[in-house]
């Protein structure tokens, strides 16, 4: 939308500061959350770097927001699974045949 516009007034040191790429949370939710949502976050995290380094600052900021959204989705989904699992565990009194 604001493509091509020189985004926020460039400071004395050149381009605006890069947006957070959320790479760490993307990796953590990919490795620890058992759901492929972390991968989506990882894709957007990489897009932040690519877009920002080619000067597309507005799109980089958008990718940054998406990366954040998806690692949050991953955590919430995992928490939901854990809560359901806990509920099952409690209602079956721990006698769950876990298909490990």
């Amino acid at each position: 939308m604001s493509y091509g516009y020189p985004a926020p007034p460039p400071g004395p040191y050149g381009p605006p500061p890069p947006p957070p790429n959320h790479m760490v949370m993307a990796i953590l939710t990919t490795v620890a959350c058992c759901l492929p949502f972390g991968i989506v976050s990882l894709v957007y995290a990489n897009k932040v770097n690519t877009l920002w380094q080619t000067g597309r600052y507005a799109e980089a900021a958008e990718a940054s927001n998406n990366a954040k959204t998806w690692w949050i989705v991953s955590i919430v989904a995992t928490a939901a699974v854990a809560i359901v699992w806990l509920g099952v565990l409690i209602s079956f009194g721990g006698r769950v045949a876990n298909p490990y």
Partner: protein
Amino acid sequence: MPMSIPAEPVLDASPGPHRFARRSWPPQPLAVLALAGSVATYVSLVSPLAPGHYPTCPFLMVTGWYCPGCGSLRALHELVHREIWSAIGYNLFAVVMVPLLAYWWLRWVRRRSLATGPAPLAAAWLGWLLLASLVVFWIVRNLPIGAALAP
């Protein structure tokens, strides 16, 4: 949030230095370290190697395929117990990520203590390489030839 720190002394000039001190305490890296330590301790004590302690990966349960994270809890448990080869056997990718995350954490601490701005972004191809290797790992560990990478 970190960007606003340099502006703090100006904003809080009238109330004195106390608000500045409270603002920078507890430092986020310490909180993250404490959280990581608690998770590692919990996973090392409540063994994921025994069934019934943790839920099964929902992706594995629904599709029957391993996700890239399958085995990471067991790998973490084995790492804490200094069984590195066993950890690698459960999830190579997770084990490789541990030193990388530690490096990022150290860099974060340094940037915060020097009060510099946000870190410069790494070369984009590095991130894409990471993503590509993750996807390859995901596929190969589900194939018969990749049995060594399966948890």
